[in-house]
């Protein structure tokens, strides 16, 4: 009897042990992104789904506020605690991929039946490329265009949205109505990434790029911007307002045109009590070269991961769900093979059509490992010119000198 009891005990404890260790080895994937900090987003939703759909993989998802994401990842990488998968804003991606912190997944993508490089728009794909190799895949994309208040346009007798920057300035003057607190235009020329986001496209449409900023065309448009600010056709506060707040003044009817992107559309449908539309970003000369900013985040696997196969499976799952992200999260997939559904909201669908066209001209910021410094040189020059501390040309020349120093020319 005693022996039986001991045997039973042994059997029970053996059973307990086998329960504690699962039938097969589990892999833990750490995924970091900004989604889920203030509202549900792509990364947290899909990570959870991937976790539940795969018994052999446990996903530890962590939401990190936008401002801390790069710093937190840098610190984690330096101390050997980096996540397996991380989602960065596209200009930040090169900081990591250029230093070997991201896993080269060129071959994996070539062999994948889910992820096909050809399906992605060129701009977003460029942001995950470095040295001819792919280090990630685009998560979603966005860009900027011109929102315009059709009621105010009709009142001022203007029938068409502006085609060139000179026209936009001319319309801004006509639309300005100080008695009713209406500015002709609003945009974001803030001292930060948003400022570069809005100004770099102008450099690009003048034939320049982040490595060549002191073009005549860019100086010309910067002079026009300054004219708008100096004459009160745009608020002086464009120098400190972010895009979200700046477009807020458009929604409340205090600005007749606003430069911003598709993330504004849902709020505008709610808030704006007037008829509005979206137009492509103006060009420097009529029919001239087009460009626009390229926003959006990228997915990447960090090179320190111990589970590259499982991490890539996760990316494949995320990519396979791209057709859901517009309907569920309002984000535009960075892919040409996905037909976006019609929402039935007339203005929203019309706006989306314009932004999809605009996306074809969107160009990435960089990619460059020291993008943040280049970006600062660009928005500093823009602000120096707009505040009249330097002429547009001089400010851009100074930025060029700084950028040449960074690029090691």
């Amino acid at each position: 009897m005693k022996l039986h009891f001991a045997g039973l005990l042994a059997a029970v404890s053996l059973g307990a042990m086998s329960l504690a260790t699962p039938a097969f080895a589990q892999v833990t994937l750490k995924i970091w992104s900004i989604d889920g900090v203030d509202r549900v987003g792509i990364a947290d939703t899909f990570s959870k789904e991937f976790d539940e759909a795969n018994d052999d993989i446990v996903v530890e998802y962590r939401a990190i506020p936008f401002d801390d994401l790069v710093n937190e990842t840098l610190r984690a990488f330096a101390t050997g605690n980096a996540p397996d998968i991380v989602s960065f804003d596209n200009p930040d991606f090169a900081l990591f991929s250029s230093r070997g912190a991201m896993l080269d997944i060129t071959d994996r993508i070539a062999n994948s039946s889910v992820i096909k490089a050809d399906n992605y728009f060129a701009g977003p794909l460029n942001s995950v490329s470095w040295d001819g190799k792919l280090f990630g895949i685009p998560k979603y994309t966005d860009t900027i265009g011109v929102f315009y208040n059709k009621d105010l346009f009709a009142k001022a007798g203007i029938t068409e949205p502006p085609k060139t920057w000179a026209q936009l300035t001319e319309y801004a003057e006509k639309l300005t109505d100080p008695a009713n607190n209406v500015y002709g235009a609003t945009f974001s020329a803030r001292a930060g990434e948003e400022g570069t986001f809005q100004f770099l496209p102008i450099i690009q449409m003048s034939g320049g790029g982040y490595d060549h900023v002191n073009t005549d065309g860019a100086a010309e448009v910067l002079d026009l911007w300054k004219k708008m600010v100096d004459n009160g056709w745009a608020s002086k506060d464009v120098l400190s307002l972010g895009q979200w707040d700046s477009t807020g003044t458009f929604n409340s009817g205090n600005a007749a045109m606003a430069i911003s992107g598709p993330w504004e559309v849902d709020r505008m449908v709610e808030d704006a009590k007037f008829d509005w539309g979206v137009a492509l970003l103006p060009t420097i000369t009529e029919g001239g070269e087009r460009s626009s900013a390229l926003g959006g985040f990228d997915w990447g696997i960090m090179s320190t991961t111990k589970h590259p196969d499982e991490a890539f499976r996760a990316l494949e799952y995320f990519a396979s769900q791209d057709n859901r992200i517009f309907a569920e999260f309002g984000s535009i997939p960075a892919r040409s093979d996905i037909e976006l559904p019609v929402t039935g909201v007339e203005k929203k669908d019309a706006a989306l059509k314009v932004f999809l066209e605009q996306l074809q001209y969107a160009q990435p910021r960089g990619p460059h490992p020291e993008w943040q410094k280049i970006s600062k040189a660009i928005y500093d020059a823009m602000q120096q010119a707009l505040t009249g501390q330097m002429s547009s040309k001089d400010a851009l020349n100074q930025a060029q000198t700084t950028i040449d120093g960074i690029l090691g020319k």
Partner: protein
Amino acid sequence: MRRFLGSLRDGAGFDILLVGAAMVFLIAMAGLPLIYNVLMSFQQVDMFTLGSLIRPWAGFQNYIDVVREPAFWLVAKNTFIFVFFSMGGQFVIGFALALFFAQNFPGASTIRGLFLVSWVMPGLVVGAIWSWILAGDFGVLNTILKNFGVISSNIFWKSDPAFSIWAVVIANIWLGLAFNMLLLSVGLAAIPRDLYEAAELDGANAFQRFWTITLPMMRSTIGAVLSLGLIGTLQQFDLFPAITEGGPANTSTVAQFWSWQMSFKLYDFAKGATISVMMLILVLIASIIYVRSTRHEVRG
């Protein structure tokens, strides 16, 4: 052994133990990070070497690079304006309020206590509130100034290079006012009343009493308040991201914000460390003044 244990309980050993505990704490919590920071300012730092102590030596190159930055002298000027006028404003208005509340009218101490509300508020909250007050098109301050006829068109406090640094100075004066007033009130309360009575009997007027009694008796307090004000102002960071973000075109960037921007926005950790070392030297001077003024106080 026994004598050793004995001295630990009561004697030189006990003193050394106390000093040792304090020193270990100081070195671990303040000394090592400080040394690490100074070391970083002489090294080449990037994201790969962020975690290691031994890095390529850069000598004074980081210092030379910082001084050569186009924004260096602008930032130096802004830092001077910010520190000098914040401290000046906080001190003068704080002293005036302290003297005012020293008049002991009914409710004086309660109202004085309420002034502390501004001091207990987090800098980011204060920054957000002032950011709305100072807003250009729909700001409260502009509306008030316009209604009083002081200005005819809006001042763009946050976006006009002529005003941006002053926007932060105003907010910082408001934030630090209560602390200055409180410390100065304590100093005022410590002055014996009979001194004033004797002076009054001798026929001294209010200004003479202030100049010959209040100020000399407050010397050490004033020294301490000014030094703490300097340290506090150089540490003031929260207001900048909340109000101007250093813009437009760096016209409201001060050294502490610049250092943060270099390290955590541009990821140039070496330059960020270099700027903070430069500031450290300034704070060190202030600390020496502070320590000397409080030592004077102890000796009476």
